[in-house]
């Protein structure tokens, strides 16, 4: 018999505000953030929650994103539950410190409202900001709607602070497309969150009664071993993430998986998307199915640690996987997600073809029609043999 669902309250609110409420419910204690479009509503609302005493926290108005993540490390080292948010250039400015935060095992939670990187300057959505940060050693998830943004923002603290994980985590949500839209979502009440998310218990903190040295340097003899420990922690986090998602599912009825399947039964062709693009792709898949096409959709939710087994299992039986990236790696494989998917499938004895399409850069609108056009293009390319390493789809002048 299914467990009774937690008390649910359905509201319509801007996703940024929902994320702020999630951070409030999670009882974040230290927040250091610098405003950048389109993350601004999150930090503004959090700042007013603190100002009104609705969130008992220290809110630091730092003077740059580099200082934001640095201050988060300080707050986490003191032993506080820590949160920040950023986008695009801000994430790029944090870059140096992001590697340090994860290697030093601080369970910081960060929302990235994904936005294109300059140049040219663009405040609109794509995934180039986070794709440039694949190697930072953080846990990384993507959400596709407001409900997921709310749910994963709360779960993020539980995952990051898990005693065998203790790694920082990024929750990616598409800038403007998600951050600035009003969506209907179910809140989870304070009592349920408190039971789900106990107070943070650091393994080590800076405490004069138990002095430790954090951030020592490593000679060549030992650097590899320290990195190995980090790699193992990140890949072993996989099972713990799944267990926590399972627990959330039992509490709320919303279950999450590292690779989500949409109408994949008997599909010969699979699209693969991340973030809010997935909901657009779902509409396209519905239309195509109605027209008799055997197509389905894979939605990659867990980006790091990469879900190798779940992905390989998901493509079983398909002949073609069309990966739709929302970022460009110039001069290289083109789409970061496509290159990782293709590489993950390479060892399989039986594996589908893969093609990489790049869409939606700099906030360019993607409609269900785009996916249908991509399907046509993909079939043509396969028939005559792929003419390019990747396809920057819809570019004028091609």
């Amino acid at each position, binding site marked *: 018999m299914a467990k009774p669902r937690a008390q649910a309250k359905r509201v319509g609110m801007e996703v940024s505000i929902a994320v702020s409420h999630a951070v409030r419910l999670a009882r974040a204690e230290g927040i250091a953030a610098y405003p950048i479009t389109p993350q601004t509503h999150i930090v503004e609302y959090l700042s007013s929650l603190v100002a009104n005493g609705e969130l008992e926290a220290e809110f630091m108005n730092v003077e740059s994103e580099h200082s934001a993540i640095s201050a988060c490390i300080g707050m986490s080292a003191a032993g506080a539950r820590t949160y920040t948010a950023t986008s695009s250039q801000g994430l790029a400015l944090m870059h140096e410190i992001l590697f340090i935060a994860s290697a*030093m095992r601080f369970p910081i939670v960060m929302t990235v409202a994904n936005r294109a990187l300059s140049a040219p300057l663009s405040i609109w959505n794509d995934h180039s900001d986070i794709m440039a940060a694949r190697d930072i050693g953080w846990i990384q998830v993507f959400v596709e709607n407001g409900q997921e943004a709310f749910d994963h923002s709360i779960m993020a603290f539980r995952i990051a602070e898990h005693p065998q994980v*203790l790694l920082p985590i990024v929750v990616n949500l598409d800038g403007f497309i998600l951050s600035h839209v009003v969506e209907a979502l179910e809140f989870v009440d304070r009592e349920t969150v408190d039971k789900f998310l106990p107070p943070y218990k650091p393994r*080590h903190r800076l405490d004069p009664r138990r002095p*430790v*040295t*954090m951030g*020592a340097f490593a000679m060549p003899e030992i650097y590899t071993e320290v990195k190995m420990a980090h790699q193992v922690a990140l890949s072993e986090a996989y099972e713990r993430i799944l267990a926590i998602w399972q627990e959330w599912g039992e509490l709320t009825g919303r279950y999450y998986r590292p690779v989500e399947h949409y109408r994949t039964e008997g599909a010969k062709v699979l699209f693969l998307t991340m973030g809010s693009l997935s909901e657009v792709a779902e509409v396209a898949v519905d239309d195509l199915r109605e027209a008799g096409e055997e197509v389905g959709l894979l939605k990659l939710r867990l980006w790091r640690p990469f879900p190798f087994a779940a992905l390989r299992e998901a493509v079983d039986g398909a002949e073609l996987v069309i990966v739709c990236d929302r970022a460009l790696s110039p001069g290289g494989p083109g789409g970061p997600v496509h290159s990782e998917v293709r590489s993950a499938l390479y060892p399989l004895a039986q594996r589908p073809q893969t093609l990489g399409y790049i869409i939606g850069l700099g906030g360019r609108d993607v409609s269900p029609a785009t996916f249908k056009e991509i399907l046509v293009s993909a079939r043509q390319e396969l028939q005559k043999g792929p003419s390019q390493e990747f396809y920057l789809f819809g570019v004028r002048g091609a």
Partner: protein
Amino acid sequence: MTKPLEQTTWQEIEIGGILTKPGSAREYDVGTWRSQHPVWTKSRCIKCGVCWTTCPEGGISEQPDGYFDMNNYCKGCGICAKECVTGCITMVPEEE
């Protein structure tokens, strides 16, 4: 004694590379660096303690009789001899 780096496995490293033994630098033998060391002429020493304060290493310690003497952290820089109020410290080359 902390395990030598070249023998440490990744499992043995504390999370985040954190060092949990404050002051473990004491295990490192910097005494081999010096090519000279201070010698006190006790008859002229007034036990003021200035030599002890000016040593960057903490390489001078008070003895039970109240005079000061070097310990193995001395790197032989010679500051103590220079700063000594009565000039009772001489720097003497290390014997081979």
